[in-house]
């Protein structure tokens, strides 16, 4: 149970700012000012996590 499974979500609070920078396990990134919004985006995967250039 203590091992990593590889499905890691990461949120960095960018030093010197109020911004949160999130990286989904799929590699997509997102910036937000609010952790609730950040987790909503993160956990909506794959919705809203399409590769750049793909349709919305």
């Amino acid at each position, binding site marked *: *149970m*203590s091992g*990593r*499974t590889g*499905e890691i*979500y990461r949120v*960095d*609070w960018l030093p010197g700012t109020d911004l949160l920078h999130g990286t989904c396990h799929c590699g997509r990134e997102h910036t937000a000012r609010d952790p*609730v919004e950040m987790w909503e985006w993160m956990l909506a995967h794959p919705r809203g996590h399409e590769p750049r250039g793909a349709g919305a």
Partner: protein
Amino acid sequence: MPHITAFARNQWYVAAYGHEVGRELLGRTVLGESLVLYRTEGDGTPVVLNDRCVHRRYPLSEPPTRLDGDRIVCGYHGFTYDTTGTCVHVPGQKRVPRTARVASYPVVERDSLVWVWIGDPALADPAAIPRARHLDSPGWVTVRGIEPIDCDHGLLVDNLLDLSHETYLHGGYIGTPEVAETPITTEVDEGAGIVRVSRHMDDAACPPFYARSTGIEGRITRWQDIEYHAPCLYLLHSRIAPVGVLPEPDGGDPGGFHTEITYAITPSADGKVYDFWAVSRDWATDDAEVSEFLRSNNHTVVMQDVDALNLLQRSLGTERTGYQELSINIDTGGLAARRILARLVEEGAKPVERVR
């Protein structure tokens, strides 16, 4: 309206420290289930049974209930149970009713903790228990305690996942301004149910908790790396060193002081939680004064949390029409933990299909 988080069943929970379980009957309530714990006479294996006699529901953890060898004899009418919970004797008659048994619970003693499985016993897998080896390893010294809190276990999870409260609630003990001011990094390992929250302070004041125990004078580099294994085990890996002193390239860290702060967050009943706390160190291990200082100082810190959370629970209970919270950056880890707990609650409530 009371603030209540549902229980996550089909999980392991710490019911006691190993040293609390012996030949005296110990009563604990975990996830609303009344338990009685004891050790067998021969090999000292911990036993966990339901704490209510099948006859008239007398609590088996209460006198004059007693142990007769490895059997519990109910102090009310003498119903006698073996270590599996099977009733082996009733008063005045030879036939013991077939239904006369109390539930027995899967139990594992590991790292000085007694873990109990609450849920379907067929699903209990000891390999799923997260480790806290420092609690029972050579070279480490631990001070510890347990405090019941009259609050929902979710409030204790919130408290521990957001250490910015140290600055305000625990100022003068473990809190300094830098804790609340320093940005955090949060990682969620979805499959493993682990939330990691890191706060690395490059140049911080040394709080009395560490200044007096380590003897470091002046400012410090302070790292706090939380690893929360939902639902029960919380590890805080703490490293402090004189400012600018970092681990060496080969991983050695002779200039750093490593302290492991462990919590087990065990829901007891609705609005009640056991707060198991421990502080382990691999430095000044033979210094009894340091041990006593850390024990007493950390106990004070825990009681500051206990008082605050008791008050918060009562206060939330006066909100008649529901309430809205506001979350900011410091809550990123706590929100992740809440969500994982909600998932575990959902999974624990589902009927499980078995291959027969």
